């Protein structure tokens, strides 16, 4: 138990530094996020699972802020796995549907989390539907 907590702590830090990178990249879009409601700053635990031909991520458990959109998570994962910019990454919830790129983590967590975690499956080619 204590192991997984510390892992989350550590990964959280690296996500934070990535966030500051993307702040410089995307002016307008992140400005909107800064204004968003306080409750969305709630931290969300996510579990990333590869499917099909997707590369495995060394760290599967991450903690992200609730107001982060799916497109942000996908960009982060692409950089983490060192995918080419033109390579695609598809994320799925419940192994059923691909959430909208502007869907925020808090909404997904509120609707589709199990045992306190939001499970996202990812792959490089469309998997479900």
């Amino acid at each position, binding site marked *: 138990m204590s192991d997984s907590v510390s892992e989350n702590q550590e990964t959280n830090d690296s996500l934070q530094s990535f966030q500051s990178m993307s702040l410089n990249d995307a002016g*307008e879009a992140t400005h909107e*996020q800064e204004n968003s409601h306080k409750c969305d700053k709630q931290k969300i635990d996510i579990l990333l699972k590869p499917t099909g031909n997707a590369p495995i991520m060394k760290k599967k458990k991450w903690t992200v802020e609730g107001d982060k959109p799916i*497109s942000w998570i996908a960009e982060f994962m692409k950089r983490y796995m060192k995918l080419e910019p033109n390579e695609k990454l598809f994320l799925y919830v419940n192994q*059923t*549907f691909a*959430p909208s790129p502007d869907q925020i983590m*808090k*909404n997904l967590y509120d609707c*589709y989390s199990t045992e306190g975690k939001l499970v996202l499956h990812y792959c490089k080619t469309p998997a479900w*539907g």
Partner: protein
Amino acid sequence: MANDREVLREVWEGKLPIAFKLDPDEVVELQQPDHFYLMVPRLSYFPLVTDKVRKHFLRYVANDKQDREMWLEYDGQPIKWHYPIGVLFDLLITSDDQLPWNITVHFDKFPENQIYRFSNKETVESYFMACLKEADVLKHRGQIASNMQKKDHNQLWLDKFEQFWAVNRKLMEVSSEQEHFKYIPFRCYMEDGYRQKLIKPVAEDGRRKTLQDLLHEMFPGRNNVNIKTHGMIPPLETPLQWMSEHLSYPDNFLH
């Protein structure tokens, strides 16, 4: 079951008058192009109805910009093509005096950081189908949409009322042992995006929940929340199950 056909028809036929104009800075001809007027369905998406707009303005922009992806702007903000047109209108326009809706068309300087590229109509279609599947996960644990065949999916994407509803009625059905959906698929839009939550159409004691109950659960302690959908203000005592069956957009979400 969604059986109030008059309401369904009324919602389906909702249209908005729009005046498109090309950004004057992008005009390379001596003469400014005329505005382009269009009645567009509230339930549709901009990339599906703006082929004619593109054609109309294309010859007024520089040659090297003609192949670029067209994008739309209202009041200084790029328009999010992936929201249904009626949702965009209800969010952006507060008074009917502002009709027709004046939208500026651009071919240059696509705002990458603010809106997504749609590249082709298939992108819009797959986005639409993903929403529909998500709605079905909330209503029936996804069992109905996943059992549908490709031809059913195609039929949901056609723009004919009868064909759409021939398939969509299956998505609006309730199982025999339950008289309602598991959860109500809805998105509540605020200034900075939308919120979703798990909300059941009935209370613990079996009472049918209403729009009022949804607002209490979404915004506890706030009594001054205004709700608008399809350009109207629904009565707060409207049952959620009925709303979901009759006032959902084709993606099966209430917006």
